[in-house]
Every structure is written in C-alpha cells, then in structure tokens.
C-alpha cells in the first residue's frame, strides 16, 4: 500500500536533482555574462570607441558570433535544461532516465558550448547564422541533443493517459530541436549550396527560435504561471489551438528571412502567409494567459516571477506584432538588413525568453538554496534594469531601422546612414549597460544569497552533529 502511495505521490527529492538544476542555472548565467561582454565589445566598436582594437582574439567580428551563440547555446539551452530537470520529473511523476546520464549531458554540453566559443574566437566559425559552431563540433552537439531527448522522454513516455499542455510543448521540442539542428548544420554544409542552402538556412534560423526556444518557453509558462497564481489556465481549448497552430505554422515560416532573394517567389509568399498565421495563433495564446491573470493582477506587483513572465509576454506580443509587419513584402523592402531586425532579435531573445528564464531562476533559486533571496530590493533592481534596458534597446533600434532603410534607398553615400546611426548605437550601448548592470546585480544578489544559505546550514549541521 505504501509503495503504491509512493508511486502515485513520489517525493520531490526522488524526482528532482536540485544540485544539477543549480549547476545548469549557474552555467547559464556565466554564459550570459560572456555573451554580454561580446555585445559590449561590438557596441563600442560601432560607436568607434573600441579600446581593444587590433587584437585578433578580441576581434569584434568574432565576438559578435560569440555573443549570439553564448546566448542561444550557453544561456538559453543551459537555463532551459535546468528548468526541465525541475519541471519534467515533477510533471511526469518519474525521474529522468538516468542520473549519471544527466551529469554526463551537463558536462558534455559545457564542452560543446566552450569549444564553440573557443573555436569562434580562433576564427573557425561556420557560415550559418545562429549555427556558427565550428563544423567539427556539430556532430557532438547533435549527439548531446539526442541524449537530452532520450533522458527526458523516458519519464514522459511511461506516462499514462493525456498529458498536460507543458508536456506537449516539451515532447515536441525534443524532437524538433534535434531535427532542426541536424537539418540546419548538415544540409547546407554538406549537401546543397547556394539558393537551396539559403532556404534551408532560413528554416534553420527560424526553427531554432520557433521550435526550440518558443515551445520550451511556453511549456515553462504553462507550468509555472498556474502554480504561482494558484489557478488553472483559463481555456484548455485555446491551449490546444496555441500548440497545434504553432506546430503546424511555425516550421513553414523560415524563408521569410530571405525575402527578395532568388528563392522561388511562391515559397516566399507561403512563408509570409504562414508567418501571419503564426501571429494569429500567438494572439490566442496571449489572450489565454492574460485572461488567466484576471482577478489576480495583484501578483504583478507582489510576485516578482509573475511580473517577469508577464513582462516577457507583453514583449512577446510586441515582437510578434512587429514580425507581422516586417514579414510583409512592402515593409521588408524598407527594413531588411537594418537595425529594425536587430531590435526585433534582441526583443525576442532577451525581452521574452531570457525574461522568462530569469523569472524562473528568481522563483527557483530560493527553493534550491532553501533560503529567501538575500535582498528583494536587488531582485527588483535586476528586474527594472533588465526590463527598461531591453525596452530602450529595442525601441531605439526599431526606430533607427526605417531611417537606415530610407537613407539607403535615397542613394546617398553609404556613410551617411552610418553617421546617422551613431547616436542610436550610443543609446543602444546605454541600454546594454543597463541590462549588463542588471545581470551584475543579480549575480551579486545570488552570491550573497548563497553565502546566507551556507550560514544557515552550518548551525543546522552543528546541531545535527551534537
């Protein structure tokens, strides 16, 4: 009888390896630090005040790639894996396949990310946006993704009956991430070149966002938001629409990165239509979450993780609205290649997914360290610096974009557009400094919290010994 109870209500300690979750989060924050350093270097270069000019290993061109890769594979992937190690076993009521495998994956993934960074720093990047990982690392990374899928799918597969929304997203994401990575890194490198490679590259860029980051992010939202608000998600029907709409339309949008290229025009139209369809689906998901918040809006002020999450969702709404505009051919003619797109990318990667993950960390660290945050004020600072920073950066870049586009179309000399951009790039650097300061505040707070946890532990240990 007790064994049955145990199976139905397993203890948290048997499900979640908290140490591993902390490790993943710490690694993620470390990479975010590195990534932001790279962003800084490029930011200073753009306003022509790079103090570290002419040093091969610190070349802004190479660090620009470290900037994006450290965020995608260093911060996002690690933070997601940490959060998955918390959420998946608790949802499936079973631990992951093998604890040793989990630690092996952790180590292997850090090797992959670090060698990517070193490889890029040494100038071995692969010519694929968001996939600059040197070609010799690609198979290793793919093997890592396969192991991740196996490790997490094991408990999910043993689950009986219908699954909770979060697990739909996670299950699909394990498959999609593996397939996307394989498709993007190998087909344009080894099988096709030129325009066809461009089409596959476009699919890869967007699938990485849409089929790796987005489903994992929404999965976490469907998991944490109801827990924190202590109420279910408003509409199960809209959850279904959101998931299946994303699953169908998102993979079809990739070519919208290469409008007006020699890729066949009917495929470009298809991508544009799918993209607009995705925006509609997204609207249903947002409605679902914001209606869920009804009656609990107080949480936005007194529940910091909820505030992180919903701020992220507001940015998500904005970024999708922006996307619906920029994917139209009319708008694309003007803003393609400008800072508009850069603003969009930052708003997605930082404003949405990093926000969600930082909120998750804000929620989980006290539980992992078994103590409250050292300072709630510092947590607030972290939030406001990050939120205002990314708001300023995206607004600045999104405004700069159309101007750049008009300057180019006006056929004035190229440097006119550069001169015009300098003040915008300066503001962007200020915004970046705010976000970076936010991170430093968070790291400080975390260190102090950790020290506090250690202090709290010692008397307990002493008491136990006595």
């Amino acid at each position: 009888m007790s064994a049955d109870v145990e199976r139905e209500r397993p203890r948290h300690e048997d499900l979640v390896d908290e140490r591993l979750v902390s490790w993943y989060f710490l690694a993620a924050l470390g990479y975010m630090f590195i990534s932001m350093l790279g962003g800084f270097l490029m930011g200073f270069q753009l306003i022509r005040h790079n103090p570290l000019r002419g040093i091969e290993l610190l070349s802004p061109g190479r660090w620009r790639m470290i900037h994006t890769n450290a965020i995608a594979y260093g911060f996002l992937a690690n933070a997601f894996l940490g959060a998955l190690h918390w959420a998946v076993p608790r949802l499936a009521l079973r631990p992951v396949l093998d604890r040793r495998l989990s630690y092996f994956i952790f180590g292997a993934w850090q090797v992959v990310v670090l060698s990517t960074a070193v490889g890029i720093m040494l100038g071995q990047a692969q010519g694929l946006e968001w996939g600059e990982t040197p070609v010799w690392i690609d198979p290793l990374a793919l093997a890592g993704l396969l192991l991740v899928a196996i490790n997490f799918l094991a408990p999910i597969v043993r689950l009986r009956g219908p699954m909770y929304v979060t697990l739909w997203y996670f299950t699909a994401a394990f498959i999609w991430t593996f397939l996307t990575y394989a498709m993007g890194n190998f087909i344009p490198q080894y099988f096709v070149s030129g325009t066809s490679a461009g089409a596959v590259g476009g699919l890869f860029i967007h699938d990485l966002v849409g089929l790796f980051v987005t489903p994992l992010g929404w999965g976490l939202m469907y998991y944490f938001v109801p827990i924190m608000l202590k109420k279910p998600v408003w509409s199960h029907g809209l959850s279904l629409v959101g998931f299946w709409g994303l699953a169908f339309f998102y993979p079809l949008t990739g070519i919208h990165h290469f409008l007006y290229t020699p890729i066949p025009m009917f495929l470009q139209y298809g991508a544009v239509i799918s993209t607009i369809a995705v925006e509609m689906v997204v609207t249903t998901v947002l409605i679902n979450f914001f209606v869920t918040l009804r009656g609990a809006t107080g949480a936005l002020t007194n529940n910091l993780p909820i505030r992180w999450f919903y701020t992220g969702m507001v940015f998500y709404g904005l970024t999708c609205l922006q996307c619906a505009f920029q994917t139209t051919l009319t708008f694309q003619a003007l803003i393609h290649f400008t800072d508009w797109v850069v603003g969009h990318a930052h708003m997605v990667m930082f404003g949405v997914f990093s926000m969600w993950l930082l909120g998750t960390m804000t929620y989980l660290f006290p539980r992992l360290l078994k103590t409250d945050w050292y300072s709630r004020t510092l947590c607030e600072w972290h939030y406001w610096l990050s939120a205002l920073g990314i708001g300023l950066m995206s607004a600045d870049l999104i405004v700069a974009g159309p101007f750049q586009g008009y300057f180019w179309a006006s056929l004035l000399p190229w440097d006119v557009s550069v001169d015009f951009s300098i003040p915008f790039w300066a503001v962007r650097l200020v915004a970046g400094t705010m976000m970076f300061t936010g991170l430093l505040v968070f790291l400080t707070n975390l260190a102090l919290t950790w020290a506090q946890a250690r202090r709290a532990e010692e008397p307990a240990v002493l008491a136990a010994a006595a």
Partner: protein
Amino acid sequence: MFEKKSGVLLIAGLLFFAIAFLSNGLVPILMYKNLKEKTAEELVQGNGNLRYQFEDLARRYPESFKTAFGTPPEETAAREAWLNQKCADALRRGRNVYVGEGCWHCHSQFIRPVSNEDRRWGPVSKSEEYQNELQRPVLFGTRRVGPDLCREGGRRSNDWHAVHFFKPTMLSEGSPMPEYPWLFDGSPDKPNERGFALIAYVQWLGSWQESYPYYKDYQASNVKDVKLK
C-alpha cells in the same frame, strides 16, 4: 489524438516538421538541381577578371606573395595551371577568413530588386550566382552595417583593400569597421596568406558578371563579340 503522446510525437513532432522541410527545403533543392554546383577551380577557370586581380597581387607584393604561395613555375603552361590552382586555394581560404572574421554579419551578399539597390550596386542577384562551393552555406547575410559586397570585385584596387583591411579609418573616415592587422606582417603592404586570400575573395565577388567592374555604369561595347584569331 491532440493531447496524446503519439499525436504530439508523430504528428506535431515528425509529420509537421517533415511537411515544412519537404515544401520549403526540398522544393528549392529539386528546382535548382540542374544548376550545377561549381568548385573553386571551375570558378577560376576562364575568369579573367579574377585572374587579373590575382596577378596584380603577385606583381604588387612580390615578396609577400612568394612567402604566401611560393614561386611560380617558369614554363608558361605550368605557370598558368599554378596560378589557377593557387587562386582557387586562395578563394577557399578567403571564404573561410570572411566567415571566421564575421564579415558576413555586417556585409550582405545579395542585391534585392527593391529599394534602388540595383542603382546603388548593380545587377540584381540571380540563383546561378550562388551555385558554387563558396556558397556552402550561402552567405546572403542578414545585416548591412557596411555595404553589400556581391558587386564589390574590381570596384576598388588591391592596395586600397589592403590598407582598408589593415586599418579602415585610414581610408574611410568615421568607419565603424574593425581593424584586421593580423592579416598582414606588420604593415599594409605586406599581406600574409590570409590577407591575400581575403583580398582575392573580395575581388572575386561579382567577377562573373559581364559588367565587372562597372556594374550599374556598364555600357556594353559592340567590340565584345569580335573574334580576332
């Protein structure tokens, strides 16, 4: 089906992904399968514009050229073959430098048929221009901090590029482009192997066009089709 493992795994995970890949990935692959992919050697073959620039490098920086590529053979046919081979090697190497240094994150390589781009740079890009080994993966690019480069070849001379790579602000006042002194042995007139390769690569961009190096200003001459021999 919509909430079950099998549905999520097989339909959303595999089937939808497969539909997208087949329709958006495989279709262009099949459409362009008859456009033969050229190797670097084939790109050099018969490309007199590129060969001119490569020979110019050899004549402009003879000592550094020898250090980077060795001494060309004396005998004419052997020398021609040697030059073509070295030039192809330089293109491949130059592409790696271009990618490794992140050039492609600030410079695109395609001219769109909108926004007056053909009037700024030259002919709109066509599919066959990209069917070669050096566009693996393709370098369309996503951002233009600097100008597009796919019609850059011949527009400026090798010495201009050398100085510009060494320290862009020496020529372009106020340029935000980083410096690349490691492509040189200490001074802009001493490119190393990577420097030569990158210059050759940039001069190659657009060299397949008849309008090279005038592009938008090109006026075809009626003496083009005359056969003297």
